[in-house]
């Protein structure tokens, strides 16, 4: 009896070979799809290094530059305030997130855990407002920005309208609802004020949801285009999205310049994403569950 040996029967080999083949096929498919996703970026990245004598269009297409140069990057850097674009986007998105998360989670607490007159009426009122497409608010907001708040051409114009939104209130309300009442009651028995309870007890418990809301808000604010394009006039006050369009306008048919500019803006975002990938994924899936 030789059962103690790890003998490989012919059936097992066949199964292994089938598994290897199917794996190989899966990898092939994955790589094919990856090519479709990444090729345009790769093309733009490589084109950004082409000098004036390196043709962009040829049959067959020639991706790799023959004579790589940094000249396009220098040209874009000299003509556009890219660091300002980044800084403005970061400040706008960061500030918005901090205030928005605080304000919406403040508002979510009473909806989730308190009883008061008008609670349902206000809640359903907010639900109704959720339907309003944001573009509708732009005309009056424009008038407000110019004539009332006087923050036209300033990044405050991007932050104030985004201080609170219904979606985030809903998300945080869901999160608070799942917190056991005993925790809150314990706090009240101890004589803590509601604000203390909110800050010290509730917020730490719903931290994953806070992260979700923060990430969604950050990404939305970062990628916002139409409103910033209406508000931000001066080149050095533009955010990244608006600045990118200005890049396209300035370099129009100069593809090498455009490619360099786009590459310079996409790479930091990718680096940032890779670093925080875990939180992004959790944020997305959290939104679904919430």
């Amino acid at each position, binding site marked *: 009896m030789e059962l103690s040996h790890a003998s490989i029967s012919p059936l097992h080999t066949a199964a292994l070979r089938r598994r290897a083949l199917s794996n190989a096929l899966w990898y092939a498919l994955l790589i094919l799809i990856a090519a479709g996703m990444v090729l345009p970026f790769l093309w733009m990245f490589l084109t950004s290094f082409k000098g004036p004598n390196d043709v962009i269009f040829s049959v067959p297409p020639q991706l790799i530059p023959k004579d790589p140069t940094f000249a396009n990057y220098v040209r874009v850097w000299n003509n556009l305030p890219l660091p300002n674009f980044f800084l403005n986007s970061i400040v706008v998105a960061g500030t918005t997130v*901090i205030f928005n998360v605080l304000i919406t989670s403040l508002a979510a607490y009473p909806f989730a855990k308190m009883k008061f007159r008008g609670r349902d009426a206000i809640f359903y009122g907010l639900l109704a407002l959720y339907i309003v497409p944001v573009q509708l608010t732009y005309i009056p907001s424009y008038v407000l920005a110019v004539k009332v708040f006087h923050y*036209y*051409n300033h990044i*405050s114009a991007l932050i104030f309208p985004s201080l609170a939104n219904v979606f985030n209130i809903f998300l945080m309300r869901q999160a608070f609802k799942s917190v056991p009442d005993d925790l809150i009651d314990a706090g009240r028995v101890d004589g803590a004020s509601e604000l203390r309870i909110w800050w010290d007890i509730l917020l730490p418990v719903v931290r994953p949801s806070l992260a979700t809301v923060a990430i969604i808000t950050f990404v939305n604010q970062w990628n916002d285009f139409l409103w910033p394009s209406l508000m931000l*006039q001066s080149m050095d006050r533009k955010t990244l999205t608006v600045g990118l369009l*200005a890049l396209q306008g300035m370099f*129009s048919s100069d593809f090498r310049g455009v490619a360099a500019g786009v590459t310079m803006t996409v790479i930091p975002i990718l680096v940032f994403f890779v670093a925080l990938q875990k939180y992004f994924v959790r944020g997305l899936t959290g939104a679904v569950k919430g």
Partner: protein
Amino acid sequence: MRTKVLALLMLISFILAACAAPAAQPPPPTSAPVVQTQLVVQTQVIEKLVTPTPGPNPEAVIEGVEPNAEISLWTFYLSPWFDDYIKSTIARFEATYPGVKVNWEDHQATFLQDYRNAMAAGTAPDVANLSDTEGWVREFAAQGKLLSMSDNLPQSVIDQYFPGLFNLQTVGGKSYQVPWYQAIAIELINHQIYDKTGLKVEDFPKKYEDLPALCKTIKEKTGTLCDIRLTVTDLLRDMAYQGGVKVMSDDGKKFTFDSPEAVAWLQMYVDMVKNNLVDRNALMTTDDRVGLELFTSGHAAFYQTGPQLIRTVRTDNPGLYGYLDVAPLPDGKSGKTAPTSMAMSVKADTKYPKAALALAVFFTNPISQLEFAKIVSIYPSTPASYDDPFFSAKPVAIEDYAKPLAKELISKQADIMPEIPQPKDVNEIVLQAVQSALFGGVNPQKALTDAVNKANALIGQ
């Protein structure tokens, strides 16, 4: 506890960053002694050129400039290439009118949108470099947003400009701009592609209606498309100059741009699009950079532009520069040239009208324009500038080809367009009609007649 402090610090830093208003422009140079030396030199030259005006500085032609005025200036697509020139002119201005401070911004592809937004917001610059060619002056003058130059400038100042240019884009018979630098439109030719047609530069069409035939030859022999641009923001202007079309009745009450001449003009473009002879993107773009860049990247046989933009070719595609040649613009049926003109305008509700007027007039006076002409191939709108030996010198580089002829050519530039009520809306109607004929297969006559009816209805006829 530590995280709380950290969060609080982050919060504070974000608030500070968000609330801080960034200083956008560096302060202009204040090297006073150097400037005074310049003034002394120029005083000697000035005595020959400009009629003597009262005051210690011959360039200070506006009286009653508000003390300690702070005014803003926007230029169009001049930075960073002409930063030094603008800054030095501003410095000279501030020395001429002591106490006045100028804040300068340059806007580019989004200039018109930015200016419109700023006007609506009440934050428009006091002085702006508007394009006559693109019809911007008329757009804002018609809305009452610009200061009338005819009413607010002394006659001696008005006389320093070519009359045909001072009276561009008038509204109600008054001018709302002072003309700045002019371009002479020429046809830039790329020998690399053009020579393959077998034609010589002298054979370049002399008339607009001969362009389609050239484009057909270019397409056949070289496979490239023609790089022709329609002024989509002012199609009636193209119609008038190129096609000799009378767009309005003499009494200014009815539109007439569905005449046989107009149909012939439109048909010319319809045929070119139908036979796939032109690059559609360049044809319909709102940004004239697109057509220029198409030429600069070596994809077009010719492009209609000004010699001053040849420098773009020199910087962006030096290899092409050696293959460049210049041909005169084909004549439109109107026999007149459209002025390719940049201007300075002052906004109507400026807090410092005298200072703003002074700046506009300063930038456009003969000395400033001469200095500008010396660094790039643009042409002054002031006859006095041409007395300088710079203009009688023989042309060396291809950009200078038009220098000796400039004064005569520019004095012939004239505005043959009538004053059109509600120009933006009318042009939008024409644009839709032209598009429907070019790309939608609508019969040109029908498209234009429908547009005329719509436009007449709009102005209440």
